[in-house]
């Protein structure tokens, strides 16, 4: 074997006997498509170009304006339900809840892994008249978190916020729901308003 047949990482020596090796010559590195400020990330078999930033996981229950009537009459013993035919769930270890087994793409919360979360949601209830009100609050397990919110009949001048929001940090897995606290003049004839306008948005921030 002569010297001029020696190759290191696929690269031959130059006339001075030097071998220049770049990152992409290393067998488990592929820098294809790399852009400024990117780093190398292991993908299970090799290192490829990617962004340094992490990913904020989200759960987003919303219907994107598709229709489905609210699946049960609002009741103070129940949770708020959200309609999500194509639910977004990018939080590793999170799973959607349907406590009353209603099915048909309706969910009343999510089981979340340990972490820190920013949470917000809304309810758009059906009522029989101007006294119609439904107060609800986000809960981690049985613990109320964040602000009390309210859905009200359009002719009801209540000044509660429409949206419930909270920040919650937990060292262990927990069930996140929005618990109905009080209800007045709920309508057993339900509409698709909650399907189109209600949402649950969870951001895992740590």
């Amino acid at each position, binding site marked *: 074997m002569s010297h001029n047949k020696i190759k*290191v990482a696929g690269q031959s020596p130059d006339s001075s006997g030097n071998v220049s090796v770049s990152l992409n010559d290393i067998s488990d590195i592929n820098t294809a498509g790399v852009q400024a400020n990117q780093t190398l990330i292991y*993908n299970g078999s090799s290192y490829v170009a990617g962004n*340094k*930033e992490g990913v*904020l996981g989200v759960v987003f229950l919303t219907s994107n304006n598709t229709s489905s009537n609210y699946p049960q009459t609002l009741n103070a013993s129940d949770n708020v339900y959200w309609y999500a035919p194509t639910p977004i769930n*990018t939080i590793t270890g999170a799973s959607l809840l349907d406590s009353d087994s209603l099915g048909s793409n309706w969910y009343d919360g999510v089981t979340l892994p340990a972490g820190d979360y920013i949470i917000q949601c809304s309810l758009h209830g059906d009522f029989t008249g101007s006294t119609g009100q439904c107060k609800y609050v986000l809960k981690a397990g049985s613990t109320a978190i964040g602000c009390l919110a309210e859905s009200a009949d359009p002719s009801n001048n209540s000044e509660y916020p429409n*949206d419930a929001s909270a920040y919650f940090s937990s060292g262990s897995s927990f069930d996140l729901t929005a618990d109905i606290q009080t209800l007045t003049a709920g309508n057993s004839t339900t509409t698709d308003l909650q399907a*189109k306008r209600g949402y649950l*948005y969870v951001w895992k*921030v740590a």
Partner: protein
Amino acid sequence: MSHNKIKVAGQALDTAGSVNLSTSNLSDIAYSSLSSNDLIEYNGSSYENVAKANTLLVAQSLFANNNNTATGSGVFNFVFTNSTSNDNTANSLFVDAQSSGYGIADITGSLDTSQVCPSGLQIGSNGKRFYCKYEVPTGQYILVASTRGFFQDSTGNSLMSWMDENYNVLGNAVEILPASGGQRGSKKIFGYVNTNTTIHVHLGFISTSKHARAREANGTTVQILRIGDYQS
């Protein structure tokens, strides 16, 4: 020294005189339980694998809101129409961020806005900034907006949502009404988009009536947060 004793990064040459190198052969890299999504990070003396942060690191964001009231004449006569055709440059809810002061568009990273003055509005001579749609490169984004209606009369109403350029609805719909018509439901307009190409998003109208394009000093805010790479 014979050839067969040559080693490169601890690796012997094969019979053809070649040696392949992987990162683990390099003298200043030491792996421990290497897993997917790990990065190589310098620890002060050598490189080691560390997990990619799985926490919020917002690298790019866009914020814009109205911060002044229109003074031009005639703006009240122009109303929005339903977002069902190629009209998102002039028919999406626009933010009028003035050329100075708090509320002017703040952008980090490669997000962008499209500055379009809807037909009929008077921009004036102060370089006012009308933002009608927002360019987002590949990645995952949280879209947040709030607004209020400016209607020609008490019978006006709008049902609004975040939309992409093909008018796909990207989140919850929000009903915007005149003050006298009740304020039912959430007024926060949320969206989420996960795209592997550069697209434009905007605040569109699922339905609308008598919603004037006039500018208001308050009540309209747009926020776009990049929360991660595109997820296939």
